[in-house]
């Protein structure tokens, strides 16, 4: 047998919580050059972690994510102009304290990375980027903001980022902060004291398809471990468990959230990825806009669909997709058994002619072609709760 878990390699990068993960007995893997927990046998493993997040609460070390702050240079407005130039969503629509899903594009309309843009102040933004693309992203941002009157700061190593996710996340975190969490809406954030640390960023964001928060604390090891342990302690009554990248992946896949290098990348454009609603063509020029405008005139060559295997077998990343006649038509970008649905789900790029719900397809699983069909996405959507009051009214 061969396993995905890796032994410790000195060249891998480590988050401030690395020693703690190892002490907890986590299975570690190399994820984009980072030594990260994939699952915690002490939590019951991937399935148990996944179910804890769907039904209660789980916590993740996501400190490997990068953070870039872009703020005012000599005159106000330069940072906003830079962010608008760099990203496809419309950052001018953000209120202070609000965040948005967006992406940085190459001139050809394909993805440098997807990002969450937080508006910290009138002309002050925090971009949260992927771990595996950190250096590339930072270089890209510096290069493409050179002509703008703004200051770019790489804060990636300044924060330990912990995601607390699940329907009980709000109850856990509320025990640890003076900030009133109830009025914070999805994709909004505030600052507050967390575990005694003043002025911490608390964002109602995540990558699980569940309600939850991401908190940013200083990257000093002792402080980071103290926060982690406080969250565990506060979450005990709600059954909190530490969760690894394995559950993070199955959770985001069920919610059809894109993963860089899989659903999005430097050879996939925005229209193909189906992320149109985060791309604001009318906001003015931005990198990639012209190519996308031209591309929208031509018919799409491929589009991202959800599929489910009908016969026994699991469609995994990179497996080839065929039409029922045996013609190769596409490829699986992510696939896994779904712990919530107990079905084998996957995302795949196929020509638009094969994108209708119910379309029969085949996936090549090792040497066999097994039957699959197109299904609606997201595979999982959390039940709607009554919307909380607006942030300003608290």
């Amino acid at each position, binding site marked *: 047998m061969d*396993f995905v878990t890796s*032994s410790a390699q000195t060249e891998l990068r480590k988050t401030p919580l690395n020693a703690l993960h190892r002490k907890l007995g986590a*299975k570690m893997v190399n994820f984009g050059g980072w030594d990260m927990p994939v699952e915690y*046998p002490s939590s019951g493993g991937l399935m148990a972690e996944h179910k804890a997040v769907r039904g209660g609460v789980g916590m993740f070390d996501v400190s490997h994510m990068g953070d870039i702050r872009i703020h005012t240079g000599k005159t106000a407005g330069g940072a906003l102009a830079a962010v608008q130039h760099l990203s496809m969503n419309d950052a001018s629509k953000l209120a202070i304290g609000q965040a948005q899903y967006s992406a940085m594009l190459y001139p050809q309309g394909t993805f440098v990375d997807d990002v969450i843009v937080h508006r910290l102040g009138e002309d002050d933004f925090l971009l949260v980027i992927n771990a595996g693309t950190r250096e590339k992203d930072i270089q890209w941002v510096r290069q493409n903001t050179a002509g703008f009157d703004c200051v770019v700061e790489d804060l990636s190593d300044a924060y330990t980022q912990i995601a607390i996710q699940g329907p009980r996340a709000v109850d856990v975190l509320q025990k640890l902060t003076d900030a009133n969490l109830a009025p914070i809406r999805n994709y909004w954030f505030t600052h507050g004291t967390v575990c005694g640390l003043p002025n911490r960023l608390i964002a109602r964001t995540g990558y699980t398809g569940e309600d939850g928060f991401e908190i940013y604390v200083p990257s000093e090891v002792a402080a980071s471990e103290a926060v982690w342990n406080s969250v565990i302690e506060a979450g005990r009554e709600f059954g909190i468990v530490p969760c690894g990248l394995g559950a993070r992946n*199955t959770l985001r896949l069920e919610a059809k959230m894109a993963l860089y290098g899989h659903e999005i990348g430097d050879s996939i454009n925005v229209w193909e990825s189906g992320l149109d609603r985060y791309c604001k063509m009318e906001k003015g020029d931005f990198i990639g806009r012209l190519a996308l405008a031209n591309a929208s005139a031509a018919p799409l060559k491929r589009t991202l669909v959800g599929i489910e295997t009908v016969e026994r077998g699991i469609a995994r990343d990179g497996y080839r997709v065929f039409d029922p006649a045996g013609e190769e038509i596409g490829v699986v970008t992510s696939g896994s058994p779904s712990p919530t649905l107990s079905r084998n789900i996957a995302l795949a790029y196929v020509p638009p002619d094969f994108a209708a719900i119910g379309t029969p397809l085949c996936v090549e699983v090792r040497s066999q072609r097994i039957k699959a069909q197109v299904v609606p996405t997201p595979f999982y959507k959390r039940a709607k709760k009554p919307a909380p009051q607006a942030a300003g009214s608290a």
Partner: protein
Amino acid sequence: MGYPANFRYTKEHEWVNVEGSVATIGITDYAQSELGDVVFVELPKVGAKLETGKSFGNVESVKAVSEIYAPASGEVSEANPELSNKPELLNSDPHGAGWLVKVKLANAAELASLMDGAAYEAYIAQKGKEASA
């Protein structure tokens, strides 16, 4: 979980237990714990020929597919019928009810090069040390 002394073990974490002319093959407790939740097992059909060191099937956990390598050559006389509906037997009872195939060995002498229980335990203890180094 202990490693039965009378089994023989490969460096790739398969075990083989010879009773008379039949050898039963499975994966070790260490292997199942590394894999995590097993959700799918793909086994050869009765009559299939196994060749030492070659892949003869797959075990899938939620996160990955792992190949199973034959600890010895021989012909498959039985594949565990329980595993198609209960793949989790590999996690709960890897040295017992989670067995994979029974094989008529081509050359029983091949097994002499494999580890016994004590040697295998020492082998995985060493791997554990490397992992936490």
